[in-house]
């Protein structure tokens, strides 16, 4: 490969970090791909095993879990930085790869996936879920499903596909590939029998008839079958059973396959993280990481950037739970319900490109379930007034909410409201989390985003 292209691109990362222009997690790759459009393919060829993980929700955490277990196994691998999940982020990671790293573990944006797969040619492709997310950016869910379908149809048979049996659309896509294994959750007390309003994928991908659910775990995930044709949830090779959610303290469950069965404990909250851990287990088993290493890797995982991350702010504990779409936000609320007592809540809503310009999704979040558990509510972000109206029309008194126009005012308000040693739950969208982090960074409460790996 052209040495000039490589050194220019590499230098750009150093320059952008030095000048404080940003993380340098995407710029080198962006420059390289401009200079050398086939660079991704060329660099990927040098790897022996490439694992690609994609989903609307959970891909960052799951990629972290797999990386953790790979670390335990002393596998030397290259991975992209959380959130840098387009071609530029992956190219940057590959560019900065150490030559003895023969494994690649990448989380990939669901819209970018169909274009990236032929270039990366993964040995293992993991598809977790597709939820409605940012209609202005991704378009309709059906469009993504169609693109994924074409992608799977042109996948070489050697690619091992790992797919969530509980997602009806994905399970159907999985059935189109020879080399596929499914994972899914067994019946659990945390499931329900009714589909929440505004769930996606309610019709059979094959015959358009309505689907019937025996169990619903998150959104449209669960135990399903078509009312009309023979399409139904495939029997998973990897199962999660005996789930116990311990609120913000974490979760435990039994993961099992034909080969083995093990108890998995994770310090992460909510059934969505059980899905993430089960996905990581299925992926690690597929690349022959031992159960002991998987167990250890998962139990010591720390929260990914903004996912139940705890930041100490002048003696107040801020628990940050990223919420960027209804499915994720509803999971966060369910986790909060498992906590005792009332809570100080801060919700931040932005509508920048990375958040989605359309904020109508907040009306599909069931804030109603936590209304009587709120001891104070602070609202902030570019679209704070839309959130305020959301709460107003849920019956929450307008006089009891505080609207903070800036991060600084938000922090000041939390400080005046919450006692030392108290805690606040913060539910931000992606860019409002970056704003919050920048605000906290300014006063020395947290580190910068690009120091995260």
């Amino acid at each position, binding site marked *: 490969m052209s040495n000039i292209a490589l050194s220019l691109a590499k230098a750009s990362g150093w320059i952008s970090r030095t000048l404080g222009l940003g993380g340098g997690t995407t710029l080198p790759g962006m420059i390289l791909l401009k200079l050398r459009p086939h660079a991704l393919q060329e660099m990927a060829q040098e790897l022996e095993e490439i694992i690609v993980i994609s989903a609307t929700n959970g891909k960052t955490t799951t990629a972290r879990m797999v990386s953790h277990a790979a670390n335990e196994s002393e596998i030397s691998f290259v991975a992209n930085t959380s959130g840098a999940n387009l071609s530029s982020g992956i190219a940057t990671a590959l560019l900065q790869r150490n030559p003895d790293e023969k494994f690649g573990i990448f989380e990939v944006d669901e819209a970018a996936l169909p274009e990236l797969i032929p270039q990366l040619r993964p040995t293992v492709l993991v598809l977790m879920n597709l939820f409605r997310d940012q*209609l202005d950016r991704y378009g309709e869910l059906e469009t993504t499903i169609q693109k994924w379908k074409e992608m799977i149809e042109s996948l070489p048979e050697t690619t091992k596909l790992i797919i969530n049996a509980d997602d009806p659309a994905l399970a159907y896509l999985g059935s189109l590939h020879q080399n596929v294994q499914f994972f899914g959750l067994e019946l659990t007390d945390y499931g329900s029998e009714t589909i929440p309003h505004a769930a996606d994928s309610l019709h059979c991908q094959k015959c358009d008839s309505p689907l019937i659910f025996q169990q619903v775990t998150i959104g449209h995930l669960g135990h399903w079958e078509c009312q009309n044709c023979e399409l139904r949830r495939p029997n998973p090779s990897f199962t999660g059973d005996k789930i116990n959610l311990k609120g913000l303290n974490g979760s435990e469950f039994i993961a099992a396959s034909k080969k083995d069965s093990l108890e998995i404990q994770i310090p992460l909250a909510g059934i969505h993280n059980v899905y993430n851990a089960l996905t990581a287990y299925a992926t690690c088993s597929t690349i022959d990481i031992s159960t002991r290493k998987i167990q250890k890797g998962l139990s010591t995982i720390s929260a990914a950037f903004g996912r139940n991350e705890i930041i100490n702010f002048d003696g107040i504990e801020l628990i940050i739970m990223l919420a960027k779409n209804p499915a994720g936000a509803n999971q966060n609320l369910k986790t909060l319900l498992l906590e005792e007592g009332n809570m100080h809540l801060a919700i931040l809503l932005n509508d920048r490109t990375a958040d989605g310009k359309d904020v109508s999704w907040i009306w599909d979040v069931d804030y109603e379930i936590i209304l009587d558990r709120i001891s104070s509510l602070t609202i902030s972000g570019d679209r704070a007034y839309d959130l305020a*109206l959301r709460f107003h029309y849920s019956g929450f008194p307008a006089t009891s909410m505080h609207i903070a126009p800036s991060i600084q005012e938000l922090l000041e308000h939390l400080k005046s409201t919450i006692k030392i040693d108290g805690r606040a739950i913060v539910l931000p969208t992606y860019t409002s989390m970056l704003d919050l982090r920048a605000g906290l960074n300014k006063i020395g409460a947290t580190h910068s985003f690009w120091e995260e790996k």
Partner: protein
Amino acid sequence: MTEIRICHLYPKEMNIYGDRGNIAVIQKRLEWRGYSSSITPISTGDDFTPTNFDLCYLGGGQDRDQMIVAYDLQKKSAALHSAAKDGMVFLWVCGGIQLAGEGYTDSEGRRIPGVGILDLDTSAGKSRLIGDLVLDAELNGDTCKVVGYENHAGRTFLGPDATPLGSVLKGHGNNGIDRTEGAVQRRAIGTYMHGPILPKNPWLADKLLSWAIEHKTGKVPTLTPLDNSLENLAQQVAITRAGVKR
């Protein structure tokens, strides 16, 4: 207590733009004025009985779901026409406005039938019209700014029997050409505006409520004024952010 009966058409299929917000606003603004309300979901295969409702809501959906719904709506067409003639209130948003018209010609030239309660026709455009939308709206000679968000591929043109809901100050509206947005015919309103539309536009919400109460009681009601300060502030912030001068 007078009960206003609301029909929510296809809530499972047509709900992708926070349509629940519009229903919540209708219910709360009735409740705050001492009216009760009932919501009846009507789905594919269910009968629609025109005399059972005062207001009928239909939201936006994905293309595939909209197709499923379009064919089911044909079976309800006669009942919907009789309801419209009888003065029932309709709010049909996004995919809804397309289904309320004569029909929709998609990008491959296929024709999807509408029910024809609004005199308008839609065909697919090359690009999607996406972004903030601000209108000077007019209903019964009364005017107000209305603000929302649009995201549609359809280009809708009105026939002589429908009047636009408003003229576009910012955004694309019905077709991106004639600066019109939405359609009104009797008490049926179709619009591309979501966001959802009603929370930030209490003026429009109260027009619909007032019509629905009149449909139920036969009398034009005097609506108790509500404190709209939060709604108005939210609207003003949205208008300013969209770059429209007051």
